[in-house]
């Protein structure tokens, strides 16, 4: 087997792992990393996005519009959850664990009762291509592209727009932002909706490739939390390098010894990073900069 085939296969596996980590994590990076709300219902926002996407595609919409619908519905649900529950718990971060865990149980069981134990899949678009002895799914490349796109969009949103500056100011020193005339209540609810929408987007993007069941969110949540924890508070400077590091470790270990060792390697890498960089990768980068 020649070097080019091997290199491409390693790159593809890295991109695949990177896309999964980043897309799982970016919604949580906003809600947990930035806002400090420990959102255990993150997986259920992903499930919501996937279900809405599949339902709209079954109803006849093309897949991209279905994914958009999934994203928007999740964001709307995020607004409602923020208004009804999360808003009252910003000073009590530990209580958000209980509240969002309860929400996640209600969402999983509610979906099971109302929609049933499974939902028919929609099928992966685009087919496959061949490099050397291996064939690859084109859609996985699309997922990698989507992960890069989401990261770029988040960077632009939080660094280049007025909303991004206000949101960061509000979250860092809320009373000072309020004193300067910022409507902090509104600013708090928008990032939450944004995070929920990103989770819905991840669900929508992965819906064609996965089994659709009420518990599907659980398969994302571990990857999402470890990526955000080692990434730290900054959405872009944290999630992107964290996703990169973990994807290298995970894809290399999986290709060497199989899925079990991929997971072990991922968690060992997390322990090492948390031990060496307690404020996460972004904390390290930002300290160097100042």
């Amino acid at each position, binding site marked *: 087997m020649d070097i080019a085939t091997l290199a491409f*296969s390693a790159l*593809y*596996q890295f991109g*695949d*792992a990177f896309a*999964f980590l980043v897309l799982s994590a970016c919604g949580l990076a906003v809600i947990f990393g930035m806002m400090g709300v420990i959102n255990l219902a993150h997986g259920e926002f992903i499930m919501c996005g996937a279900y809405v996407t599949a339902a709209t595609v079954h109803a006849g919409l093309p897949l991209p519009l279905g994914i958009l619908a999934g994203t928007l519905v999740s964001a709307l649900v995020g607004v409602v959850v923020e208004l009804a529950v999360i808003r009252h718990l910003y000073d009590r971060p530990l209580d958000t664990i209980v509240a969002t865990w309860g929400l996640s149980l209600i969402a*999983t*069981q509610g979906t*099971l009762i109302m929609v*049933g*134990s*499974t*939902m*028919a*899949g*929609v*099928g*992966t678009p*685009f*087919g*496959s291509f061949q490099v050397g*002895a*291996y*064939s*690859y*799914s*084109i*859609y*996985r490349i699309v997922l990698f592209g989507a992960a890069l796109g989401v990261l770029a969009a988040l960077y632009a949103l939080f660094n280049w727009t007025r909303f991004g500056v206000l949101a960061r100011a509000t979250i860092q020193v809320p009373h000072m932002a309020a004193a300067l005339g910022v409507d902090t209540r509104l600013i708090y609810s928008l990032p939450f909706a944004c995070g929920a929408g990103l989770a819905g987007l991840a669900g929508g993007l992965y819906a*064609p*490739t*996965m*089994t*659709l*069941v*009420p*518990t*599907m969110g*659980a*398969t994302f949540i571990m990857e999402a939390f470890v990526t955000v924890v080692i990434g730290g508070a900054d959405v872009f400077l944290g999630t992107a390098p964290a996703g990169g590091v973990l994807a290298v470790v995970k*894809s290399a270990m*999986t*290709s060497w010894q*199989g*899925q*079990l060792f*991929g*997971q072990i390697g991922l968690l060992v890498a997390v322990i090492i990073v948390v031990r060496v960089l307690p404020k996460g990768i972004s904390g390290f980068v930002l300290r160097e900069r100042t």
Partner: protein
Amino acid sequence: MSKSVLRGLRAAALTGTLVFGSSLAQAAENPIKLGVLEDQSGDFAAATIGKVHAIQLAADEINKAGGIMGRPLELVAYDTQSDNTRYQEFMRRVLQRDKVDVVFAGFSSASREAYRPIVDQFNGFAFYNNQYEGGVCDGHMIVTGAVPEQQFSTLIPYMMEKYGKNVYTLAADYNFGQISAEWVRKIVKENGGKMAGEEFIPLGVSQFSQSIQNIQKAKPDFVVTLLVGTAQASYYEQAASASVNLPMASSVNVGQGYEHKRFKPPSLKDMYVTTNYIEEIDSPKSKEFYAKFKAKFPSEPYVNQEAENSYLAVYLYKQMVERAKSTKREDIRKVIALGDVCMEAPEGKVCIDPKSQHMSHTIYLAKVGADHSISFPKTWEDIKPYWLGEAGCDLTKKDPMAQYTPSNPPPKP
């Protein structure tokens, strides 16, 4: 002191009356209690809600026809949530508090091995109505599901003859997957083939890009998929979108998780499954069962193999209780030892093997077509669960309450 003695006497008198009273009522109304511990939520729910419904269907039919020896059948059902500790909790509850006569319990082998010691400890009586990796030699258990000598000894030689002798196994990483993979290895070797590779996937994993590439690298003639749970079922869609295009063989897919209904064609094309029942089986008995099921549960997504196992288990229990004229396990086992506990099930005739307390089955080879329609290229009638008996498990003589595997057979006497 005299006071407490008096209280004791009074209590004894009272209980005496109660016992007397209940033995009078027993003949008329005292129900036979059947505990149902199945996963009605969580990762396994898709495959197991139908089992609960099947038990309800059978119980309704039996009660309408006058119950068991004139006693109605009462179900005590708990949702075990695809969680092994729930099984232990609820098994203690049904045996100690609800005092059920028999328990129907378990989907995953991990859950069965979690609750089995509790059944043994409290001297209970349990039915495991699920296909599994085989080898449980325990007088407290009756297994109505199919086992490897029924599913793999038929399937693997068929596949090797049709597609070739290079076999790759992709299995769930827990006792079921590991022991089933051992069976596949053994049968492939006996038939002169070789293992192109093996990978064990932790439960809950849903991303398979690297595993797909490993399979392509090993270039097998077909892949044995022993994937369990809804997360792992994502493999088929991902393999299809990467154009792996290899035939697949399985003892768990289609017959449990109806993947051919859940995924868009053609992701399960050329999947071969050995099962003792699925709703597509075209026989009068099967059609009748399917019609009854759909009449009672019109929104049931699929009537799978484990639903049929659970349904026939209720009727087998009825037959055994009526022949033993007792619900006591030891009396029922005397009936089993006669070796003629059989019934006409939706799949065909089934019998309980007295040595292992497992069941003989009709095994259907189901093939999934490109449009996800099912055809049956081959059927094996009356395949016996012979391995345990031949290996040395004989429950009519000795009850070791253990699980054995090909590499860990029963000790020779």
